[in-house]
């Protein structure tokens, strides 16, 4: 078992925890070599075959900068985790990727975010197909006040993905099966989506996102409102989904980042501090700030 796998143990295995933590601390005693004052990104921010290629992304809320010069690639079929303390800009960065920041009036984005050879902030880009291509799952499950079926059918309907009822049914069933929700809700497709449990609602939202057949799925703290069992289910789901989709996940739980992601990016006060493989970030962080954060040395 590698060190990373040990950190990644679900937190309910209490008897192992103590030993793990000791090891954990020992590993990080004095690895970091880049001082806290350095705010330039360390580590490999680019990959050879990027799905999304971000260069020098800056975000301002009014005059206040929220994100400074972020350069980061999202690879194909990878899960990349964004970690960092609250207000560090990781959610803001996530929302840049499908232009959800458009809905915030005073928000301004500069820099280039390239997907399929096009800059998504370009005037000529229509945000509708872009968002169909880059789906998003939110922190709090937000099923529409419609039936389970209608929740899934919403996306395919507005994009005209199904030409008749049979095809639509098929999309709904496939999406529910892929999220493992089918067995649980097949008898109550006509009941309101809000009547499901929190974990089911969140999987419903993921199913809803999958139904429009995206290429990238953005997840903004998808498990922070869920209990450990529902969290485990979502994490297993992410593991299956990453064979077809790139997944970007923002999380406050370092164990979760360690468990599910392939690469990890650490944000601090609007700067992208360090990027690397998840194993490297959690076992051999280069930047002092990263080490402070993952060892829990922040207040």
């Amino acid at each position, binding site marked *: 078992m590698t060190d990373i796998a040990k950190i990644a143990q679900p937190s309910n295995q209490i008897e192992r925890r103590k030993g793990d933590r000791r090891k954990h601390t020992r590993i990080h005693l004095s690895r970091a070599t880049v001082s806290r004052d350095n705010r330039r990104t360390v580590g490999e921010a680019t990959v050879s075959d990027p799905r999304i290629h971000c260069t020098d992304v800056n975000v301002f809320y009014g005059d206040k900068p929220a994100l400074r010069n972020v350069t980061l690639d999202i690879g194909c079929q990878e899960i990349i985790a964004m970690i960092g303390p609250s207000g560090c800009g990781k959610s803001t960065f996530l929302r840049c990727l499908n232009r959800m920041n458009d809905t915030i009036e005073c928000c301004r984005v500069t820099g280039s975010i390239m997907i399929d050879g096009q800059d998504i902030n370009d005037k000529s880009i229509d945000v*509708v197909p872009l*968002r*169909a291509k880059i789906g998003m799952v939110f922190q*709090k499950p937000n099923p*529409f006040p419609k039936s389970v079926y209608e929740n899934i059918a*919403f996306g395919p309907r*507005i994009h005209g993905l199904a030409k008749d009822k049979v095809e639509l049914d098929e999309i709904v069933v496939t999406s529910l099966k892929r999220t493992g929700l089918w067995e649980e809700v097949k008898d109550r497709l006509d009941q309101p989506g809000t009547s499901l449990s929190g974990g089911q609602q969140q999987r419903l939202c993921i199913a809803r996102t999958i139904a429009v057949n995206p290429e990238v799925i953005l997840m903004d703290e998808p498990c922070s409102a869920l209990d450990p069992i529902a969290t485990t289910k979502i994490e297993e789901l992410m593991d299956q989904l990453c064979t077809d989709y790139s997944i970007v996940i923002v999380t406050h739980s370092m164990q979760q980042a360690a468990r599910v992601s392939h690469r990890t990016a650490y944000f601090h006060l609007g700067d992208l501090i360090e990027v690397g493989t998840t194993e490297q970030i959690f076992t051999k962080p280069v930047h002092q700030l990263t080490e402070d954060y993952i060892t829990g040395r922040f207040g």
Partner: protein
Amino acid sequence: MHTLTLVLILLLLMIASFYFGRQRALVVSSGNIRMLNSLPGYYGYYTALWCGIPAFIIFIFWQFSESAIITNLVIAGLPEDITSLSRQQLNLIINEIRNIVSGNMVADMTRPEIAAAADHYRDLQTISDIALLVVIIALGLTGATYALSHIDQQQRARNKVENTILVFLIVCSTIAIFTTVGIVLSVLFEAIRFFQSVPFTDFLFGLEWSPQTAIRPGQVGASGAFGAVPLFVGTMLISLIAMMVAVPIGLMSAIYLSEYASSRLRALSKPVLEILAGIPTVVYGFFAALMVAPFFQGWGELLGLDISSESALAAGVVMGIMIIPFVSSLSDDVIYAVPQSLRDGAYSLGATQSETIRKVVIPAALPGIVAGILLAVSRAIGETMIVVMAAGLAANLTTNPLESVTTVTVQIVTLLVGDQEFDSPKTLAAFALGLVLFVVTLILNVIALYVVKKYREQYE
């Protein structure tokens, strides 16, 4: 004048006892107020309440019963030949005595025994006033003394004061409830009296409304038909026209304001829209009667239509304009309250703003919007001034909006305006109409509240 003085005295006593109560608490605490159960101020309020409340209750009681007691005493003092008179004559004499006492009549002009009774009355009143003053001050002081003697470190002054305030709040809310119940009951009893002379079914299902009843036998044009269907139809027709104006305009403007308008425009235009709600209905009324109705009539002539100068159309349209702010303001609040997360969810699936509004926001807000519309309908049904001025008085049974119709509220006004005798079916019909109006509005409001409540539960 005298009452005011008494109240002022009582208030001064309370202020003084607040001060003494507080002082006493400070003394009891022996310099360390943390030894006390409550803050010193609460002991002050405690003393003031003990001073004020018993005295105030007696004061109220006294005010209600003083006149009756004095009158009885005066009657008892009258000579035998007057007390043996019939009840009505006795009442006349008592009134005479009271008039002399209050100075409306000169005592010289009446019989000596009545003048004597008036003097007796005046004496009794003076005694009563002095007695009241003494009793109030005595009670206030007793209460304050009692409270002061009970101030010690363990006294839970705060709990007692807060409980008293709670009782006071309960009394206030009960007053509002009992007033409502009182109004409903009075309307109900008068309506029952009406239904004793006009059968219930005739009223609800009769097709002819002509409330003139014959005062003398054989009078012409006073058949006295109380079929309210024409009024119901007229009311519904005008409300329908009003809602056809108000709902689309109100709803669309609500959607624009809550979803598309910038926050600055919203902050600016919402109050402006709500000014519409601040215009007195009588102004809308003459706007309808003097401008809108002739305007419609002129256009009708051009198109070869015969539009009455007082038409349901004019009244309905103007009433609709009046209700726009109701619909728009209520719907705007409801739409605005739809969680942003739902909009984000729709946007993230690639829905356009219009799709998001049509397929997610409006369905989510629909219960609230429906409730708002129902409240607006009950407002339209109960609206009086516009229809009085612009819809006419003729109880035509018609659904043609170009003719003049009349509504329930208009008929209530016309039935009760002027000198009326209160036992004829004509006057009592107003109560029956009022009852119907009340029941319909109540049902609409109950449905609206139920819908709103259900909607709220969904997003908690």
